[in-house]
């Protein structure tokens, strides 16, 4: 079987200008931040990001690499609205597709199932349909004849997710209490890459947690990267919680150009290992 171990930079080499990128996690929780930092280093631009958004969307807004965001929300959790995203929206520098959180999930599921859409009531009567004229409704072909929202598939070119553990083959384990939808992100993508806190043997992986924690199987991913602290500064329980102090420092840079430039130079224009050293010091 194929050993899929690689580096973050080898993984993001698959991303080119104008691509649509799916990002796993939720808000400021278990985000594949090492991949985001690698995307910044690579300087790839005009990206579309599909995400239950957090600092992934915020950072790519701040670096000017994001053309379009497709999201159910963009939040840092302890800071309810992502400040760099807020800035981009209020300056009208970002194309946005804002969906109800549940519609977003159905769009991912539709993509994963290779369907054009999935139906739901969510969105009916709200302005989500006004601001997204590309989203149409569909009438039930059965006797009820009910009109429903046809949430279009959220297909992505490349997906990135971060797990607690994985093996070299691409089996991945989420040890936290919420798996989020990382499996669907992988299945909605043409190609998916997984980072993890630690690569272990398949034996250790299987014995390291309940079977239900094995969220990702090796069919879903093309590459595996060991990136300790790879979700920092978002939380990655049980390995670590959110670095709230660091997150506050990051959030404050949205209102201070000089602070942002300093943050960027210190934390984003460096290799992942230099980043982890800078954070530890």
């Amino acid at each position: 079987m194929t050993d899929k171990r690689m580096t973050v930079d080898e993984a993001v080499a698959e991303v080119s200008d104008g691509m649509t990128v799916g990002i796993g996690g939720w808000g400021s929780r278990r985000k594949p931040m090492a991949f985001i930092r690698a995307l910044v280093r690579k300087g790839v631009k005009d990206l579309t990001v599909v995400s239950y958004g957090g600092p992934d969307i915020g950072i790519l807004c701040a670096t000017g690499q994001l053309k379009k965001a497709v999201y159910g929300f963009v939040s840092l959790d302890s800071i309810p609205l992502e400040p760099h995203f807020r800035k981009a929206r209020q300056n009208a520098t970002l194309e946005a597709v804002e969906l109800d959180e549940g519609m977003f999930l159905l769009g991912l599921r539709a993509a994963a199932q290779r369907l054009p859409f999935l139906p739901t009531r969510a969105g009916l009567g709200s302005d989500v349909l006004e601001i997204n004229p590309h989203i149409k409704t569909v009438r039930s072909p059965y006797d009820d004849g009910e009109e429903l929202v046809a949430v279009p598939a959220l297909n992505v070119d490349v997906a990135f997710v971060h797990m607690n553990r994985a093996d070299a083959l691409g089996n991945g384990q989420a040890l936290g209490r919420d798996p989020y939808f990382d499996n669907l992100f992988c299945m909605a993508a043409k190609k998916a890459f997984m980072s993890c806190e630690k690569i272990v043997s398949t034996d250790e992986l299987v014995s390291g947690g309940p079977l239900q924690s094995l969220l990702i199987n090796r069919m879903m991913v093309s590459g595996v990267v060991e990136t300790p602290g790879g979700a920092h500064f978002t939380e990655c329980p049980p390995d670590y919680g959110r670095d709230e102090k660091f997150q506050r420092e990051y959030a404050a840079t949205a209102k201070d150009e000089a602070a942002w430039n300093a943050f960027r130079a210190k934390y984003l224009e460096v290799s992942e290992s230099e980043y982890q050293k800078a954070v530890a010091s």
Partner: protein
Amino acid sequence: MSIGEVTRADVCALAIAECFRDDGEIMVSAMGTSPSLGARLAKSTFEPDLLMTDGFNLLLRRALPLGVKPSDSDVEGWMPFGAVFETLWWGRRHVMMGASQIDQFGNQNIACIGSWQNPKAQLLGVRGAPGNTINHVTSYWVPNHNARALVAKVDMVSGVGYDRAAELGPKGSRFHEIRRVVTNLGVFDFNTPDHRMRLVSLHPGVDLQQVVDNTGFELVIPDGVDTTPVPTPEIIGVLRELDPQGYAQKEVVV
């Protein structure tokens, strides 16, 4: 404050709890401080069958004080986000959300101020409001009742109101219900022929004119408006146990 002193925040907490009366065995999701307190009060007293989470992914068998992390012995089940979506589409849920703006038919906005395309202020975004309101019972909490929050027309419909629901016809709107709006000044519902917002009761110490002056649309005002019930000493005791730090006291504008 002393145990015996009853505050506006206490009246609001009881009024919020009353929104969940007779809900039975469904999940309550209460967003924000006073809604969390009110829902916990309901579960601790007259509505023990309610299911509630820790705000993350654990279903808890009892209502804990605000700010207290659950221990293993408090847990009764698992409710990750995937299960939250299934539950809300299933309809066995009553959510109480905040509202940056709400209009006379109960359309709610938490998304942005100004046009969505070019917002003056980006707020939270629509989050789950469209799906919540069209799938199950919703109530709202407004801690600072003023004419910028209770408006003639919201800037963006996030949560669906009765006029929008009616346009969908009986099939599309059959799971839509906005039960109540609780503010720092009073309690409101939509039990009118055309589902316009109606004043149900004024909190003690609030006069009708204050509500009228601070509402950006014409409320339906029935003859003989009630006064919102004041919590009994027993209820006050439960509230003090559930909010020992007094978080809700700080939230409510008097």
